[in-house]
């Protein structure tokens, strides 16, 4: 199974970030055919790691694997769109015929 590593950076527990975390989980569910690892990092609690992945904006979702690395910032309100940007097609879905 293809390995997928996702990192979600949030800052605190405000509703915006709660939503972002929920969305991230939803995205993970849609990736059932993959070996997904989702990491949620709160930079309020661990400010020093923000530098590691060059985090400026929050929430930021980074796809580390598979390459290429993709980065999305914002509330991530549309999980399908997110998947498209991350270049991850949910396995088991039919490719739409034109």
């Amino acid at each position: 199974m293809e390995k997928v590593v996702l990192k979600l950076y949030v800052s605190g527990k405000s509703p915006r970030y709660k939503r972002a975390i929920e969305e991230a989980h939803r995205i993970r569910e849609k990736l059932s055919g993959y070996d997904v690892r989702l990491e949620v990092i709160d930079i309020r609690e661990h400010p020093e790691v923000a530098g590691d992945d060059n985090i400026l904006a929050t929430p930021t979702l980074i796809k580390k694997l598979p390459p290429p690395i993709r980065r999305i910032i914002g509330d991530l309100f549309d999980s399908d769109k997110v998947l498209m940007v991350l270049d991850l097609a949910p396995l088991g879905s039919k490719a739409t015929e034109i």
Partner: protein
Amino acid sequence: MSEKDRIEPQLPKCPTGIKGLDEITNGGLPKGRPTLLSGNAGSGKTLIAMEFIVKGALEYDEPGVFMSFEESDRELAQNVTSLGWDLEKLVKEKKIQLSHVKVDRSEIVEMGDFELEGLFARLEHAIDSIGARRVVLDTIEVLFGAFTNRAILRSELQRLFRWLKEKGVTAIVTVEAGENTLTRHGIEEYVSDCVIFLDNRIVNQSAIRRLCVVKYRGTSHGTNEYPFLIAEDGVSLLPVTSLGLDYKVPTEQISTGIDRLDTMMGGEGYFRASSTLVSGQSGTGKTSVAAFFVDAACRRGERSLVFCFEESTEQLLRNMRSIGLDLTPWIKNGSLKIQTLRPWSCGLEQHLVNMIKIIEDFKPRCVAIDPISSFLSLGTDLQIKSMLCSLIDYLKMNQITGLFTDLSSRDEVDLATTSSVSSLIDTWIMLINIENQGERNRGLYIVKSRGMAHSNQLREFLLTNHGVDLIDVYVGPEGVLAGATRLTQEARQKEAEMVHRQEYEQKQRLLEIKRKAVERQIKSMREEIEAEEEELKKRIEIEMLRESALTNDQVAMGKMRGIDKPVSGNKETPARESE
């Protein structure tokens, strides 16, 4: 609290440690507030911001965070090693924190609303880790390139500046200047305590850097554009020159290094902290006057500085040695510094800032500039005058005595550079050429010297191999004579004197002869008389003898005849009456 304090509450200031900037801002940047530093590319924003942090750590014991959005830590460190700042060391000592934030537009996709909490978190972490009091964000312009949602960006930046204020750090935020606006993205609306603008442009083929304090709430500040340069130890701004002419005026006089010239100048020489102009055509000896001036200063144990625009140091030293002046010992012991500069190497303003910086570093008491006419091609008359005015002002403010040589093309008194400065200077010495009988000699006279009685006589200015001589000239019917014609005249004079004396002596001799003759005459006449006297005496004697003989005869005869009566009353004849 005094009246003044109540009326003008002063914002507390944070000194930057940047030469000249603290003077212009009356103490530094607003403490605990963000300052906007705007400028176009290459204007020096990063450097000024970095110096603020470095000086804060080194001189004011305030640790600082430098958050860079463009250059990496290593690039930053490399760029400033040439200025003598060891960033790595400062980082190790936890006096500085470098934070590089990579922002790559291409990677970021925006979906929905976001905050810049990452920025805040990293900044706070950096500040807290060393207890920073100073912060730089260089340059937040980059954020505008990275995020398309302007509204969010603006509100987040507003939040950032508020947050910085709450944190109590003094911050410099650098931005790009807009085409016609102060900033490209209108950030100046949010940072309103202090805005500084940097300009970097080419004027008259020279690059000029200028700094202007556009806004500084609550403080009176210099509002001009101040030229600055990036020197080898940081940024150097031209310090403000006094608007009023209120500097101390010393009465001490210092030697010019040429004895007779001291005498011509009220007996003592130049006034301390005065400005002297020595003007003259090529080859009249201006540089020598300047050299003697600094030599005299060094002899007094005072530091001197010479700015040389035409000759190399070696040339100058050699030329002075040929007139018996050896400046090398002063260079060796550090009293004298000769700074050679090429006039066309930069613009007028840069020259000014540069010279002032060198003066501030070396701290001389006497400064010579040879020649100021080098600046002629670098600007208009007004610009040159303004620059020289600033320089003279600066010297007076710092009680430094100045001497400027000026190459003129004619022997007359009003000329381009000269007329620009003649009203500013205290003493004006003119060196001229005296041409006569196919010869050129040098002359010196004092056109003016404020505050002292000075000689108005022209003197011949002789450069010999044992120094300088000022000797009287002859003013004859042909005009002023100097050089060989003077010598001729002197010789002529001597000859005339000799002739005169000879005549006199001759007359004396004649008189003597005459007297002797007369004396001889007298003598002979006397002898004559004496002789006659002698003769007369003899005659008398003879006569007397004859008479006495006659008497004797008569007596004898009388005796024989029996005359008893003495003929001459002789006592021995017995008295016949008693018989």
